[in-house]
């Protein structure tokens, strides 16, 4: 059927004036559509050889290289992704650590502040108490010393008065009676 078709096409081509004229010039009719069996056989042999050689030595290695490269790229991408994930996890961990450290530091600071505060108030209180105590003791000492001094002064005064009076009165007065008088006077001073 193909030969019939090709013959029809070939006939129509030959019928065109151009080709007919050229056929004359070439010294015979030219049929572009009649395949020569020899050339067909050559084509088949050459194509088969090219196919076998190229499939084995060209396309195989190229495809294999490309597949390897694709696999390597895939692996590189996967490892990069894993690295990135690990880095992100590490970062998060570090962030959490820093956060915790910051919190701890804050706690230490506030604790220190509280301790210092309490220590200060304690110190202040104890100082005040000590001061008060010292004051109190000083007051008491003063009071005691005052009483003692008063007594001393009183005794001294008595002695002085007695000495003075005895000197004055020695000549004219009975000693015992005078003493009584003076004592009663001193008592009156004491009560005053």
């Amino acid at each position, binding site marked *: 059927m193909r030969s019939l078709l*090709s013959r029809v096409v070939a006939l129509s081509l030959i019928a065109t004036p151009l080709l007919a004229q050229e056929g004359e010039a070439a010294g015979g009719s*030219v049929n572009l559509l009649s*395949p020569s069996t020899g*050339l067909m056989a050559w084509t088949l042999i050459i194509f088969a050889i090219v196919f076998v050689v190229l499939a084995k*030595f060209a396309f195989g290695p*190229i495809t294999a290289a490309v597949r390897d490269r694709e696999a390597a790229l895939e692996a590189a991408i996967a490892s990069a992704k894993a690295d990135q994930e690990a880095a992100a996890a590490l970062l998060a961990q570090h962030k959490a650590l820093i956060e915790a450290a910051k919190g701890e530091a804050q706690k230490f600071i506030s604790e220190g502040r509280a301790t210092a505060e309490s220590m200060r108030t304690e110190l202040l209180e104890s100082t005040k108490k000590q001061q008060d105590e010292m004051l109190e003791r000083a007051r008491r000492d003063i009071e005691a010393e005052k009483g003692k001094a008063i007594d001393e002064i009183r005794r001294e005064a008595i002695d002085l008065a007695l000495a003075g009076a005895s000197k004055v009165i020695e000549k004219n007065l009975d000693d015992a009676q005078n003493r009584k008088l003076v004592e009663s006077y001193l008592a009156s001073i004491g009560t005053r």
Partner: protein
Amino acid sequence: MRFAALLTALVLAAAPVRIAAQDAAPKKVDIITPHITDAHALDLPAGLGHGLVQEIELPHWAPLHIGSLELDMSPTKHVVMLLLAATLVIVALTSAARGVAKRAATGRPPTGFSGAMEAMVLYIRNEVILPNVGHHGEAFVPFGLTLFFFILTCNLLGLIPYGSTATGNIAVTATLAIVTFLVIEIAGMKALGAGYINTIIFWPHDMPLVMRIPMSIILSPVELIGKFTKPFALAIRLFANMTAGHIVVLALIGLIFSFGSYVLAPLPLAMAVAIMFLELMVAFLQAFIFTLLASVFIGLVRESHH
């Protein structure tokens, strides 16, 4: 518009020269037919002072007889071109593959020529063959790639001086189409098993028997013709595209001689150059189309189990 005016002016200016040329009875020279047909001679550059072309006669061998078939295996111009194309393709792609492998050993992508070849191989493989031949199409990749690079090289060899387009010969394209046809049908048999018979005999399962038989009788020949039109179209498309481009270029160059004018010569020459650029594109396009359609046909027959 201005171009047309320029053209008219040129034609008018050249008119006296043309008339003079016509007077000297022109000799008829056919430059197209020898160019687009096969020959038992090679066109090669001649030595200085011997013209531009010398014809080298190729040896004639006694025809082989296989049964009743007579096979004349004498080498022709197109056989030489096919061998040249095969050598070029094999050298280019194996060296590219070596370059790719060498660079791959260091874990780097290829550069330069091997990189370009790898890009082309990958494009044809990933965008043309694999999406069209269907699932598990890895086995068809070398065939499709060989088709593409072999046809492309043959097409390009036709564009260089002293070259000839082997793919502009129906014998070459028909052989490639027959090989493709065999690959398609064998792929169908492998993929469908006994179901392959359904791609020849139309047997609709969702119809009553009364309808099935006449439908089968009418449509089975259509299915069968469909099988043969595919490679036929492949062969004719490639052959016609390659031949037509060369005829156009030569016809344009022939215009120079039929004008017989130096003034007008640049115009057909410029058009011929433009057509040559188009031919360069067509060389890639036709190799691509052949591969694409072969892949599509393989995919069609493999997925035709309904």
